[in-house]
């Protein structure tokens, strides 16, 4: 019998699992990029252990004729590179799953629970070409052939990837891919498997040029690009998963774009450097995860007091403490919201996709500069590590808004104004002096113990919230605006809920996706207040957005869809969980 792929949906969900150090990431990168260039939409996400070698990791890749926004539970094709990693995801294997791989990695039980197991000696094939490490390219060739990817594109990608290892290595890798190609041809010949997946536009007969021209990008890269577009010229960070990708991205492009990429001795140095850089006229980003951010809170309070702009990227992971360093969670919303001692305005952004990550990070720098306050970008491991194709970011309308003034003699850094915003000067730019003080201070910026000045300054600082509230990112609405049920989510759940709702196809649900959790847009509050049923979906254990909405509206959520095991929701899961709370 021939196993035909995929069983469900127009797309194919491929899972490659193995251990750290086996090169799964390269495989993923080559496959998604080749697939996209061949005219497919792609989406890939990974989950991995906190270790450098060994363990069990997996990458889930969707290759699709239509745009895909999220990971699914379903596995159409599983390629295990170790036995342990296959075992670890056994719950996802069903009769619709085809397993292709080496017998030694696939237990009897596992192959029985699958729809079909095809024993392919990847390693043997690779060994024949020289060394077993080429087996990944054999896998790649096989999958490429199955998906009818353009072999020339694949070759070019392999060449680019292994170029600096010399032409010999490049050749062997290409040969290995060819061997994989032939393996699939053999399977076809033997009537073992057939793939019916279509490329974008194929149904309509169009050539999928549009997809081919799209970029393939991870969340981390999108934040990095957004920072560059926002005029970021300083990143002060201490390595910490899952935020490190942003640091390495900016470090890589530092020289090109004139960025100081400084690895700090600790996170406290990070935030204080960032604030120092803004003071001197730079546009700095501090980037970290929850635990590192906890150390930055005094610094956040400093930024607030001296009315310094600062942008802080927090890539969330499960806590408390070290928690699960390489996993995902939306557990730090309240941490950011109430961070720092004392009372002051702030802005929290939470992109839901790579595109939002780019545009909102860009915007974060302008917001910080405009409102002279801390702006937090909350992402998470899922968003950081997720790779998709998307329309190339359009920098056309983007501007680096520098809200700074050339100072005059007698310049007052904290001049009182109706809006609460005082024109921001930079030392050395103009004839004035720029004096900032973490103590309570007067308009000049000099320390004061005048208690009426104190009150005035507190009011001045807080007054800016009014302005900030007039300039909030609108929520994304998906579904019927008059639907009885309003489901609210934030950050990285955008894609998965979008897809789940398409499948449910319920006219009764409106999904309100919040890309700026603080301050909340009036529209969100109105929709919640007017909802028949009000539900939330969040990747944490206690419903932090639900609490924030309650604070604003007084309304308790009628149902909460929460998850906190370290993984993002999958499409099927959201479908099911929505069904449960409806």
């Amino acid at each position, binding site marked *: 019998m021939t196993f035909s792929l995929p069983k469900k949906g127009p797309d194919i969900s491929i899972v490659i699992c193995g251990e750290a150090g086996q090169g799964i990431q390269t495989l993923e990168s080559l496959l998604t*990029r080749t697939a996209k*260039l061949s005219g497919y939409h792609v989406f890939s996400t990974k989950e991995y252990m906190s270790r450098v070698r060994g363990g069990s990791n997996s990458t889930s890749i969707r290759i699709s004729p239509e745009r895909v926004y999220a990971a699914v539970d379903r596995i159409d094709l599983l390629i295990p590179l170790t036995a342990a990693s296959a075992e670890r995801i056994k719950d996802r294997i069903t009769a619709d799953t085809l397993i292709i791989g080496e017998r030694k990695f696939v237990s009897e039980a596992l192959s029985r629970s699958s729809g079909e197991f095809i024993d392919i000696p990847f390693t043997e094939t690779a060994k024949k070409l020289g060394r077993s490490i080429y087996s990944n390219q054999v896998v790649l060739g096989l999958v490429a052939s199955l998906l009818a990817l353009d072999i020339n594109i694949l070759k070019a990608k392999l060449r680019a990837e292994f170029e600096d290892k010399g032409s010999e290595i490049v050749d062997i890798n290409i040969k290995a891919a060819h061997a994989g190609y032939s393996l699939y041809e053999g399977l076809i010949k033997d009537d073992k498997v057939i793939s019916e997946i279509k490329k974008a536009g194929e149904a309509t007969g169009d050539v999928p040029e549009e997809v*081919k*021209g*799209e*970029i*393939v990008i991870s969340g981390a890269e999108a934040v990095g*690009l957004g920072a*560059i*577009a926002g005029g970021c*010229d*300083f990143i*002060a960070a201490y390595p910490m998963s899952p935020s490190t990708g942003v640091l390495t991205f900016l470090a890589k*492009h530092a020289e*090109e*774009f*004139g960025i*100081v990429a*400084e690895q*700090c*001795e600790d996170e*406290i*140095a*990070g935030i*204080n*450097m*960032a*604030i*120092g*850089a803004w*003071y*001197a*006229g*730079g*546009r*700095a980003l501090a980037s970290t995860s929850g635990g590192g951010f906890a150390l930055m809170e*005094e*610094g956040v309070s*400093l930024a607030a007091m*001296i009315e310094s702009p600062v942008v802080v990227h927090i890539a969330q992971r499960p806590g408390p403490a070290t928690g699960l360093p390489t996993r995902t969670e939306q557990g730090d919303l309240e941490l950011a919201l109430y961070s720092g001692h004392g009372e002051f305005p702030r802005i929290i952004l939470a992109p839901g996709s790579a595109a939002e990550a780019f545009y909102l990070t860009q915007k974060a720098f302008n917001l910080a500069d405009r409102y002279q306050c801390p702006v937090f970008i909350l992402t998470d491991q899922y968003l950081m590590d997720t790779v998709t194709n998307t329309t*190339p*970011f359009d*920098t056309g309308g*983007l501007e*680096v808004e520098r809200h*700074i003034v050339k100072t005059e003699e007698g310049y007052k850094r904290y001049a009182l104004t109706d809006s609460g915003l005082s024109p921001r000067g*930079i*030392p*050395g*730019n103009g004839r004035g*002096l*720029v*004096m*900032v*003080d*973490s*103590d309570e201070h007067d308009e000049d*910026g*000099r*320390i004061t113990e005048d208690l009426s000045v104190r009150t005035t300054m507190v009011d001045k600082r807080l007054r800016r919230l009014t302005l900030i509230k007039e300039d909030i990112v609108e929520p994304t609405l998906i579904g019927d605006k008059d639907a009885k049920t309003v489901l609210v989510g934030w950050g990285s759940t955008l894609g998965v809920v979008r897809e789940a709702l398409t499948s449910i196809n319920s006219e009764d649900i409106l999904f309100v996706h919040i890309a700026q959790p603080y301050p909340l847009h009036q529209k969100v509050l109105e929709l919640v207040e007017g909802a028949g049923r009000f539900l939330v979906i969040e990747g944490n254990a206690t419903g932090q957005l639900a609490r924030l909405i309650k604070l604003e509206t007084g309304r308790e959520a009628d149902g909460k869809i929460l998850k906190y095991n370290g993984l993002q929701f999958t499409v099927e899961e959201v479908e099911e969980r929505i069904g449960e709370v409806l």
Partner: protein
Amino acid sequence: MKKTDFDIEGMETAWCPGCGDHAILSALKASLDNLGLTPGKLVMVSGIGQAAKIPQYFNTNYFNGLHGRALPAAVAIKASNPELTVVAESGDGDMYGEGGNHFIHTIRRNPDITNIVHNNMVYGLTKGQASPTSRRGFVTPVQVSGVMSEPFNPLAVAISLDVSFVARAFIGDQQRTSEIIEAAIKHRGYALVDIFQPCPSFNKQNTYKWFRENTYYLEDSFDSSERLAALGKAFQTDRLPLGIFYRNEKPTFTDNLRIKTPGYRKIVDFKRLNGLISSLAS
């Protein structure tokens, strides 16, 4: 006292009468004036403490930040605008206690800033607890049986990290202190000046008299390029040497980064950015 551009008319400090901080203020102003620096091109960066109030008494740009965190801010200010002269100044508790980690790692970076520490061997502003440099046996409301820990030796630590410039001064001698500060500011790279500063309010042990009796200037013949010799001097505790202990010219943080343009004058290269974005399509 000679007037300088850094003076503020009618300014009153919050320091105690007799405090060494007053003289440090004068010495520093004199140094800046002698060097021909102007208020607009100088940034004083400090933390929190009595010493850390010093920028408030200057007519200049300042960044009076958090307790212990002057150095990271100073490093970034210099990196973001290399045209500015940056002086980071605070107390011994601030720099060596709360700020200890920044102290050691800033030395490693070698930014072209001057780091002045008012070393009164006590926490002044919080009313008299031991500081890292307090000497053994010093009794305070917290160290009720006297300090038992090894005193922090900032000079030795700095030299052990191959610091670019390190000196010690005693503000009882304002003239020489001013000269040392001048040399430090002129030095290209990170320069530490640890200044012995009597705190008549809380340190009744290390007084003007005590410092006068327990310090001496390094001999003219002393060779400040010799690391081990410098350490030998830094280890001396019976009589504490003053002067420039060690000098070691090397590339600075900004040299390494090759930064020249101040941040606020930078223009984002959107063309290049578009190229980078497009490259992700292939």
